[in-house]
């Protein structure tokens, strides 16, 4: 496989879990909740997915189980911040640590084991294109489905009523409540859906792209996901762009090493984080723009239930 094909195919595989998890986190943040437990949710899902695929051999079941596991964890977070009115930042960190702990615990007997890769579904005709075909169109089916989810969400937040309700709840929970929407229910659902999607992303890493389990294998990707949502200024189309960009950096690191160029790989790994800091600074310097983009009530406790 020549290096361009490797770069394309590797980028797609690295970007897909980031994309699905970031789209989930986008939904959560649009509803006004900042869930910082993504790293823990992805780790728990990766462990759960790996165990399920080892036991059943079904990769689809593994992805689903990973999603459910992370969703259950996100339910703990949701109860703490929505019903117990906990501080979102501290609760997210704590639930994240909890998830990492649970992942390490249930994954212990599987440490270092591998599973069979997921069956590929080459796209007819397109996969025969030289270089591009094997790079872009010769992946497991789930890889093509994730961008479709992005399209669906893009449409939802633009025009569908559900998307507008989520946005209203995130912009001004008091107003949304006043016009009759149930703020807590919308946020609870958003956190669960976001948790499920983070879980699919986490399970993707252990059962599709790396096909192995090792404690700590999520290796900061949950933080990249949070960076990604901010980098994308809470816009679906930019999350897609950012995910493939950040995915490419992850692969470029391997490529650069294999080509013997002595750029420190740690610098490449840091690029997404640095880019995000720059993006936050650029976006925030203009007060109007940040208000137009960031959900206004993000991270704030909402206690008006009566």
């Amino acid at each position, binding site marked *: 496989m020549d290096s361009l094909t490797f770069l394309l195919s590797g980028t797609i595989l690295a970007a897909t879990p980031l994309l699905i998890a970031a789209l989930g986190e986008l939904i959560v943040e649009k509803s006004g909740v*900042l869930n*910082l437990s993504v790293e*823990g949710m992805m780790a728990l899902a990766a462990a759960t997915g790996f165990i399920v695929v080892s036991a059943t051999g079904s990769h689809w079941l593994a992805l689903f189980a990973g999603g459910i596991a992370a969703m259950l964890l996100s339910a*703990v977070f949701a*109860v*703490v911040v929505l*019903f*117990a*009115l*906990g*501080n979102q*930042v*501290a*609760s997210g*960190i*704590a*639930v*994240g*640590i*909890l*998830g*990492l*702990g*649970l*992942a*390490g*615990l249930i994954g*212990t007997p599987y440490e270092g084991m591998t599973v069979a890769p997921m069956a590929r579904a080459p796209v007819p005709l397109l996969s025969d294109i030289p270089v591009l075909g094997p790079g872009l169109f010769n992946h497991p089916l789930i890889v093509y489905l994730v961008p479709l989810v992005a399209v669906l969400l893009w449409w939802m937040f633009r025009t569908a009523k559900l998307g507008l309700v989520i946005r209203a709840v995130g912009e001004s929970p008091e107003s949304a409540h006043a016009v009759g929407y*149930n703020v*807590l*229910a919308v946020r*609870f659902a958003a956190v669960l859906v976001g948790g499920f999607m983070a879980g699919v992303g986490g399970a993707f890493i252990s059962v599709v792209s790396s096909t192995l389990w090792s*404690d700590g294998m999520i290796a*900061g990707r949950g*933080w*990249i996901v*949070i*960076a990604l949502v*901010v980098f994308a200024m809470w816009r679906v189309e930019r999350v897609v762009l950012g995910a493939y960009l950040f995915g490419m950096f992850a692969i470029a690191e391997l490529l650069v090493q294999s080509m013997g160029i002595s750029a*420190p790989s*740690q*610098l490449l*790994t*840091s690029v997404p*984080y*640095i880019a*995000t*800091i720059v993006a*936050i*600074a*650029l976006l*925030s*310097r203009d*007060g109007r723009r*940040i208000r137009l983009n960031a959900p206004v009530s993000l*991270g704030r406790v909402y*206690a008006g*239930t*009566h």
Partner: protein
Amino acid sequence: MRLPWTVEARAQRSPFAPLVAPLAAVTATILAGLLLFTLLGVPVTTAFYQLLVAPVSTTFNIGEVLLKATPLLLIAQGLAIGFRAKIWNIGAEGQLILGAIGGSLLPIWFNDSQNPMMLVGMALAGSCFGMGWAAIAAWLRSRFNANEILVTLMLNSIALQLLYYLVAGPLRDPFGFNFPQSALFPDVAMLPTLFGGARVNAGLFVALAATVAAWFFVERSMTGYRLQVGGVAPEAARYAGFSEKRAIWLSLLIGGAAAGLAGVFEVAGPLGQLQRVVSPGYGFAAIIVAFLGGLNPIGILFAALFMAVIYVGGDIAQASAGVPYAVIGILQGVLLVTYIAARLFVDYRVRWRRSAARVAAH
């Protein structure tokens, strides 16, 4: 989804109220720990012994508890000052790493030094590095209004990569068979240990001094008062002319210096060199400690000790009963989750809707 209960803020609280939530959380965490150990096949009595008795039973283990309490205490005191002002520094882990790097430079560059002032220089360098790392977030927040939660989070990840780069290259031990770690520090760069055989070191006194200093700063100083007003009532603070930018800089610099110093104490204490892993997540655990302690300097002291017991209990259980190290993370998570749930009942009056309706009818 109309909740079956309503909440309203309590107008007055009993003087013991601040103790209720942490004690409930500690009890719940202990029960969760016993349950978890039992599920893992450890008999309940053994589990209880390993989790709570063993960590305080031998001189060495007490030393271990104090050793782990040191960075937690130091970092949490620094963070709590910012948290009270609603400046959310989530970057203590990165600031700790920078402190470890800064503190390692002198003993690596002057590896055969006999200079008795070495430790002082390391502490200064480390806390400056931690402060400098936090200053990036402070500058971006005060200059561009960039959210400090997100910036400090990103800086954590960058700090880790910086550490990996340095121990693999510029700061690697040239005679270390290519292992990603620095040369061992000279004796003058090591903190003296306190009592026979235990690893706890003089850093503990600094953490305790920081606790006293934090108490005076929060309870007795005008600056501390201004910070707190800024957190509780930003409008009032603005009206009174308390500078928000000053609060941002002060909070982040104090937090960064404390975390940086904690980083120095790790490399100059139990590690004795710069490695790829300089902290088992102390920077994040300290956030839990700060909240469990009610953002109160005295409360944080006890919270740090309990958190340290969890670390040591987990270590002991892993060594003697083969319980995975991961249980430590689970118990840390349970600790904060139950604390927040308990706080609901302390801070708010929770009423079932049915009885609330009856009260209204009267």
